[in-house]
């Protein structure tokens, strides 16, 4: 009995308790995307993107087929193997290479394929003259565009045109008393070897350090794109601490500051600001000869940034993310524009290595009062979620939970400002929201870090990239409807390893029999699939237990 079952929908089921499970995981990880990792059976999915990722990483169809046949418990349908081989064979038939005299060219080893794609209306504007039967010139500016289009046509091109070195700038990791963790080192190596691509690591697993490691490899001017200003400061802080870079070498390009230094950290927001139909801050990309572009939180990359990225294909690109799942389904653009997945490690594995804290996730079901239920029933459809998410009963349960974890560093996270203000008032805790100034935020975060403050109420501004090392309890009272990646980010707040190895707690307070419950189920699915199973408890029981 082997440990792998191949399903007809091209999912692979891996029995994790099996003795061969580790070997099998290593064999299938290069080409199959881990979709769900609950306690007993992990589900991987074989997709064309995954297979091409594997091809890009140097694996061939034979290895893939061999892995499946070796570990499969039941005979693998022949058609599936043939399909896999055919799909993988499509990658690399077309190559983007640098021609000594004609510049960027698209080369083919299979003439009919070249003929087929050249007939496509979408390709025609992107290519230039036919150089010989197997080669066609490509406008250098369309390098990203053509890769994107070819992927859509099902003939992904291998980009071998290389990268510009960019302006050199000395960067070293300052490994004094710490070192890159093994998986971080693997991620950096995997990225550097592949040239460009995406590194998938769970929240709290130290993605910033992977970025720093990549910069130390590149030793060139670097542009770092992050989600918001707080995150930008975080990066700056971390880079100063972990590398040979000094404060003066790192510039911040955000709504408030417009510094361009050898290492520049810019926010997505400022880049995508549009004035009079143009993006005024785009020149940032051309302001220096960047040797490396780092994209933080790739899964949140806004659509316009994809467009700019298409023009940056000659520069090395590193994407960092906790998940390749995009709520908008643009995974294929990430693949074609930033690059294939170069490294990933499932959460549980890193947790098992002790690099992130284990977490106990609890969904607290709250019974609304009769009057609240009546009001909910009569609320307008678009108001329903807001209403049930912000009921007074939930607030009382939240207060009880905070009281229960008195003395522990607790974050209360929510979506609606008035609810948060109210909570802040009742809990006598400061509230961080959009209008809180950055200085004030930093001050509060520092106080929280120092332990001067034990409860902090935050809105979704704190969803991303703030570092609160000692938060052990997070209580989520409302969220952006059913967003799965928001849930993952919020859980990430408590997953940073604790000094005392204390188990983190993540509460989600949910109103029973309302749309809140449905959204919660949707949000939790991602975590449950990552192996973070929720327990569901009734608020009444939980509180009764407290009193007893």
């Amino acid at each position, binding site marked *: 009995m082997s440990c792998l*079952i*191949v*399903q*007809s*929908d091209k*999912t692979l*089921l891996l*029995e994790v308790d099996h003795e061969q499970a580790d070997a099998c995981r290593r064999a299938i990880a290069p080409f199959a995307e881990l979709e*769900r990792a*609950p*306690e*007993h*059976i992990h*589900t991987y999915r074989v997709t064309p993107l995954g297979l091409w990722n594997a091809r890009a990483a140097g694996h061939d169809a034979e290895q893939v087929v061999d892995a499946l046949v070796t570990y*499969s*418990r*039941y*005979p*693998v*349908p*022949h058609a599936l193997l043939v399909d896999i081989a055919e799909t993988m064979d499509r990658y690399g038939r077309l190559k983007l290479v640098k021609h000594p005299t004609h510049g960027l060219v698209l080369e083919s080893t299979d003439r009919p394929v070249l003929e087929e794609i050249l007939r496509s209306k979408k390709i025609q504007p992107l290519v230039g003259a036919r150089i010989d039967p197997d080669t066609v010139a490509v406008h250098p500016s369309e390098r990203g565009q053509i890769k994107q289009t070819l992927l859509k046509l099902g003939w992904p091109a291998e980009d071998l045109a290389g990268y510009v070195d960019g302006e050199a700038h000395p960067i070293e990791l300052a490994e004094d008393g710490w070192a890159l963790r093994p998986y971080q080192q693997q991620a950096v190596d995997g990225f550097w070897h592949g040239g460009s691509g995406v590194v998938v690591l769970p929240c709290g697993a130290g993605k910033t350090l992977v970025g720093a490691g990549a910069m130390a490899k590149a030793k060139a001017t670097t542009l770092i794109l992050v989600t918001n200003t707080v995150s930008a400061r975080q990066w700056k802080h971390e880079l100063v601490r972990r590398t040979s870079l000094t404060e003066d070498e790192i510039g911040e390009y955000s709504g408030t500051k417009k510094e361009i230094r050898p290492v520049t950290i810019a926010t997505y927001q400022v880049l995508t600001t549009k004035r009079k139909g143009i993006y005024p801050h785009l020149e940032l990309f051309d302001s220096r000869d960047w040797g490396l572009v780092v994209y933080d939180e790739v899964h949140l990359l806004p659509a316009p940034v994809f467009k700019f990225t298409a023009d940056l294909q000659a520069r090395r690109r590193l994407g960092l993310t906790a998940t390749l799942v995009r709520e908008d389904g643009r995974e294929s653009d990430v693949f074609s524009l930033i690059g294939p997945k170069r490294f990933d490690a499932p959460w549980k594995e890193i947790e098992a290595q002790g690099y992130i804290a284990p977490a106990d996730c609890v969904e607290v079901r709250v019974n609304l009062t009769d009057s609240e239920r009546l009001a909910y029933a009569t609320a307008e459809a678009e108001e329903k979620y807001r209403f049930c998410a912000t009921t007074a009963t939930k607030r009382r349960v939240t207060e009880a939970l905070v009281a229960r974890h008195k003395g522990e560093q607790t974050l209360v996270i929510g979506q609606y400002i008035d609810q948060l203000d109210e909570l802040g008032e009742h809990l006598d805790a400061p509230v961080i929201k959009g209008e809180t100034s950055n200085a004030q935020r930093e001050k509060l975060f520092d106080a929280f870090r120092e332990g001067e403050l034990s409860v902090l109420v935050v809105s979704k501004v704190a969803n991303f990239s703030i570092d609160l090392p000692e938060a052990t309890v997070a209580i989520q009272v409302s969220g952006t409807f059913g967003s799965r990646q928001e849930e993952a980010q919020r859980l990430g707040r408590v997953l940073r390893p604790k000094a005392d190895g204390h188990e983190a707690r993540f509460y989600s307070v949910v109103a029973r*029999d309302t749309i809140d419950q449905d959204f919660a189920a949707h949000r939790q*699915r991602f975590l*449950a*699939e990552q192996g973070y*199973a*929720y*327990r*569901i408890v009734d608020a009444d029981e939980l509180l009764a237990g407290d009193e007893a």
Partner: protein
Amino acid sequence: MTTPRDTGSRSGGTARGGGPRTLAEELRARPDGALGGLLRARPDLLNPVPGDLTQLATRAGTRASVLRALERLDRFVQQTAEALAVAPDPCPYGTLAALMTGDAPGDPLVAEALPRAVATLRDQALVWGTEDRLRLVRTARELLAPSPAHPSPTGLGPTVAEATAGMSPGRLQQIIAAAGLPGTHDPVSAVAALTALFEDRVRMGELLAQAPAEAAAVLGRLLWGPPYGTVTADPAPHLRWLLDRGLLLPATPGSVVLPREVALHLRGGRAHRAPEPAAPDLAPATPHSAHTVNAAAAGQAFTALTTVEELLTSWESDGPLVLRAGGLSVRDLKRTASFLDTTESAAAFWAELAYAAGLLASDGEVDERYAPTPAYDDWLHLPAEQRWARLATAWLAATRCAGLAGGRDAKSRPLNALGPDLDRSPAPEVRHRVLALLATLPPGTSVAPETLLARLHWERPPRTPAEPGAEDLRTRLARWALTEAELLGVTNRGALSAPGRALLGPKDMESEDAAPAHPHPLSDAEAGACAVRAAAALAPLLPEPLDHILLQADLTAVAPGPLKRPLAQMLSVLADVESKGGATVYRFTPASVRRALDAGRTAADLKAFLTAHSRTPVPQPLAYLVDDVARRHGHLRVGAASSYLRCDDDAVLAEILADRRSAPLRLRRLAPTVLAAQAAPDELLEGLRAMGYAPAAESAEGDVVVTRADARRTPPRTAPAPVPEGPPVPDETLLGAAVRAIRAGDMASTAERKQAAAPAPAGGGLPRTTSAETLATMQAAVLTGSAVWIGYVNAEGAASQRVIAPVRVEGGFVTGYDHTADEVRTYPLHRITGVAELADEHA
């Protein structure tokens, strides 16, 4: 050519021991075993059993029977028969061998295979006579000999004698003179001289050496057939050169033919460009291990079972409608395909398979739908291997071809899956042969489909070459057989699996050479025995059904293999299937749990079930989900009542409920102050009054309905319309129409007939003319535009007279303006008893 045959038959008749004179005579001399062999190979001769050998010989010579026999010969035997058809009759073996191998040393393989071919032809009573006087039966010769309408597969044309049959003696003399032969006295000797020249390799070589280069090119073009070419009235010099010497002979005006002898000379004596003495070799493709093939085939066999079950389960409740023409609509097939997550052709195959196995049929209701048959229930209870054997044997023996579905028939009507006209009688035999050929290879070895098809093609070449681009039926059948066998798990990776091998009868295993001896695959008993063996071969390969699942905290359950039936059934109610294959992934949702509760399970049942069957502890969120759904399940209750009874004083209601007289009202207490009744409101009122209460009726809004006895009303009615005296005054249109109708009727009955056209029918009866006359008169009437008087018998046999002005006569119909009916009508000519012209004033 005629001369030798005449002398031959004469000498055969007179010479003692010179061989049989007729086929019957030869058959008479054959041993019983040989006759049995003949009858086995040509079973049509037995129907009905012939009275004597003369009758048998006659029947063996009938066109239909010969055609059938020729079609069932392999390529080389056919080629031999074709060569015999262009050889002199009777033909010595040596001549035949020369035709097959050519002049030169010849192909040793051909020479080696020829005796077998001749023996086969002889066994089948297609050839008879002694070795030096081989004779092809006449019908076969006619069928195979070249004629302008049916060019021979050899590409040879007629002989000189045949081609010059109508030629003037003068022209013949010119030709032999041009060919350098001395003149003769009569055409017969002239033809003989020319034939002799053409057959003499040396002299012929000398003659052709003088030919202009273009002439040689022309001969080269016609060499391998078709031997006909066109010429203008004034041919070019090189053609003229050939025509002058009889190397090309005129066939029809404007076309010429290359005489057989000339072609044979140029071909070096060979009748066939490429004799194919041996069956194409089944060169094995990449071999897989027999274990891999068997395991994968068993996996596919299991998939086949689940697919059929899935299909029929889905058709249990909501089967697709049967089209009026029979079969499944294209839309339903598409839906089925997407439901089964497969292609439309595969979906058609699964449906046809279930149909062939008797698991699926039309329900025969007014609103006809497809539904599983009772046999399906029996089938479901069989062990998996037997279920598969049922399907596989049904497939093997079926004449229905799922591959045809989605195509169009000869009249370009669409062919629907499960519909009529999908039967192709050679299908079982082709399937059998395909598998039998695969069975000759070592286990685990496959062969490229094209190789296999080439072999089948050789064994039974299609008689009429298929149109370019289209494949003949047998090839298509074989292709389908290959894909379907793969789907069923009879083969895998192109190699026959062990269960697939067991499906074939033991006899098939041996018959590597030649076509199968018994074209009808298997008798029922044999098939039954094969099914048992196939099931036994499959059983150890199938995965053992499991009795456990793995439950996970993300609300999924994984069955790491096939489940035992009761467990699978329960799970399919309790959870939704998310992914299928070797394992099954189920997902629990509130809706799926509610479904199980609706099916009568309780939360405790469900949790006990999950605990009992899970290898892992039941995760807390799942237990919580079950409880949470159960908590709300049935919280609201819905029922039907005809009326209700309410009273603020619950004591009164208790009293009524306790009263035995209230029993017929079927009251039930819903709440302290409300009773529901199954009786209608008026009955309830009556009943309560009879019991001495004074109930009041309540409207839908809750008001008391005040009833008064005199308040009865009819539904809205209109006042009656006044009835005037006499009929209403007709309007102008109606009047006009009436007048026209009267006039027309009058015209028909009083029209005077022209005496010249036909004798006037007695007493105003129907006119009678012969059909030729009718046609002529009609056509004349069309030309003159005049009206005629006809007698007409309608479909019910009722005769009538009509006056029509024919407009068109074509295809056995006459279309014209019918004065009697006042409209344009079409009458079939054969229904018209006769026609008479009207008197001139009416026309």
